């Protein structure tokens, strides 16, 4: 066994062991399993939120974008800061509403606020449709990381199957506690590894950051600023705005709000998480350093730049450590996504459908859904091809459509009816789906529009339609209700 593979196996075993131990003799009802019995302090919530936010996309995609696209990659550093400043005010309000009502899913929040099970079903469907591609992406990333870092001795498909089985195991046993414990290991690893490679590699290959950026600019003039057209300033601003608004609308982030013991946790995190975000800066440094060290990686191969350069600079031991950190960036968010999707299906689809369901039934269904979702995702990761990238883009735009309805119900009573919220979300989702399938952009929708409009992220159109339909429905029928016969 090569040393890199030994290190990978060791950390994999530690992660799975921690995930299983996290249960520690607790009786796992749904509230314990999904939201940790609402007993997490600042530290655990910080670990969970940081753990969910730094995914394989940060690790592979962050360096891949810096390597392949240059300055447009900076958007990844921007949206978190804006989302965190918003979270200081938004998350305590959500938590204070959810806590006494014992909510466990994002859909629960909509059902309770708008008094509408139908809206809950819509939000559940949106959530699952957005979560599955996200899990698929984590598994794909896991396959790439493990096969690269093991010098090819483990194939991506073996890595994906092994990872999936381990995820199923510790998620079923420990629920969100397993995620929190493995997140602790992951955060230490990723901080150490990313800062080490982001500091060492540029200095090793170029002598200084300044020399590195000057060399990149000489090799690719204009690479370090945003272009005048295409991924321009307007593109960056519209993309950052959409992603910042959608950030806490992801069902797994929304549900991690429920795990907190008190509401000051979120205010402290709003101070700390932007600093932690600088991890991404070091990922960028690695991506930029790779441009002249491992040139010629095209398209999605750009995502391999960080690992390829590391293999050139280090021996198998450190490469194994880097691979282990990457492995954890797939497992931790993967476990949260899995718990959230299974909770939504059990709590918001199974429970209303089976009227006689007891707490115990719902809890069992949630756990039974884990292997189902995980296996479907693993199959999609192995056979899904490029379609999955389109699905993920769709996922981000999907969850962003929930933002207006959340903002409009934060007060004592919702400002709009459930029907208006339902119509707005549905209209927004249909526009997202149609545009993603058609591969539309503003340039294709309106070829004669001025350049700054063409550069705008097309998600703005869907959000605009959503807001207009919501406002229209709210004015036309202020007290309308949505009903689904089977439920009410």
């Amino acid at each position, binding site marked *: 066994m090569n040393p890199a593979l030994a290190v990978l196996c060791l950390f994999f075993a530690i992660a799975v062991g921690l995930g299983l131990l996290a249960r520690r003799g607790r009786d796992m009802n749904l509230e314990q399993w999904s939201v940790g019995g609402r007993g997490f302090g600042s530290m655990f919530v910080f670990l969970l939120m940081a753990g969910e936010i730094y995914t394989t996309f940060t690790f592979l995609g962050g360096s891949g974008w810096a390597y392949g696209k240059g300055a447009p990659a900076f958007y990844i*550093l921007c949206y978190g*800061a804006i989302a965190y*400043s918003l979270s*200081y*005010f938004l998350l305590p309000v959500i938590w204070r509403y959810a806590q006494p009502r014992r909510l466990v899913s994002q859909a629960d929040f909509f059902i309770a606020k708008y008094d509408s099970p139908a809206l809950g079903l819509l939000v559940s469907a949106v959530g699952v449709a957005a979560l599955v591609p996200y899990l698929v992406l984590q598994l794909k990333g896991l396959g790439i990381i493990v096969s690269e870092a093991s010098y090819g001795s483990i194939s991506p498909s073996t890595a994906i199957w092994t990872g999936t089985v381990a995820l199923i195991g510790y998620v079923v046993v420990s629920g969100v506690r397993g995620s929190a414990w493995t997140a602790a290991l992951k955060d230490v690893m990723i901080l150490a590894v990313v800062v080490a490679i982001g500091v060492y590699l540029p200095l090793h290959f170029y002598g200084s950051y300044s020399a590195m950026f000057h060399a990149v600019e000489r090799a690719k003039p204009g690479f370090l*600023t945003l272009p005048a057209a295409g991924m321009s300033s307007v593109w960056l601003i519209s993309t950052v705005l959409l992603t910042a608004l959608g950030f806490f609308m992801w069902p797994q982030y929304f549900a991690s709000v429920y795990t907190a013991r008190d509401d000051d946790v979120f205010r402290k995190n709003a101070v700390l998480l932007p*600093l932690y*975000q600088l991890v991404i800066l070091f990922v960028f440094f690695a991506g930029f350093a790779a441009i002249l060290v491992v040139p010629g990686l095209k398209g999605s191969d750009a995502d391999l730049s960080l690992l390829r350069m590391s293999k050139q600079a280090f021996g198998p031991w450190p490469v194994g450590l880097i691979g282990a950190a990457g492995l954890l960036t797939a497992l931790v968010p993967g476990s949260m996504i899995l718990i959230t999707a299974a909770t939504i299906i059990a709590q918001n689809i199974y429970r209303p459908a089976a009227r006689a369901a007891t707490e115990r039934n719902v809890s069992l269904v949630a756990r039974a859904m884990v292997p189902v979702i995980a296996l479907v995702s693993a199959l999609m990761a192995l056979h899904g091809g490029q379609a999955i990238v389109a699905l993920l883009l769709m996922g981000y735009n999907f969850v962003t459509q929930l933002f207006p309805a959340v903002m409009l119900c934060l007060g004592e009573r919702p400002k709009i009816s459930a029907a208006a919220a339902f119509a707005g979300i549905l209209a927004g989702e249909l526009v997202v789906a149609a545009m993603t399938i058609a591969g539309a952009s503003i340039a294709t929708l309106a070829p004669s529009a001025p350049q700054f409009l063409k550069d705008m992220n097309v998600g703005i159109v869907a959000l605009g339609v959503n807001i207009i339909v919501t406002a229209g429905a709210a004015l036309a029928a202020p007290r309308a209700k949505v009903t689904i016969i089977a439920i009410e």
Partner: protein
Amino acid sequence: MRGYHALALLPAIGLLAGVPFANRLEPYVFGLPFLLFWIVAWVLATSAIMGVIWMLDHRQK
């Protein structure tokens, strides 16, 4: 909501409205191209700003 909570809008202004003006290579600051420096500075400032708001909120209680 209190008056100083408006400070929380600054990160969005710096990172959204500021970008077209900061979209330049020179001058390099701490070895970083100017646009990247601008964004990193605002991420750090976000933490500081939210820290100040948190302290003011706690003093009020």
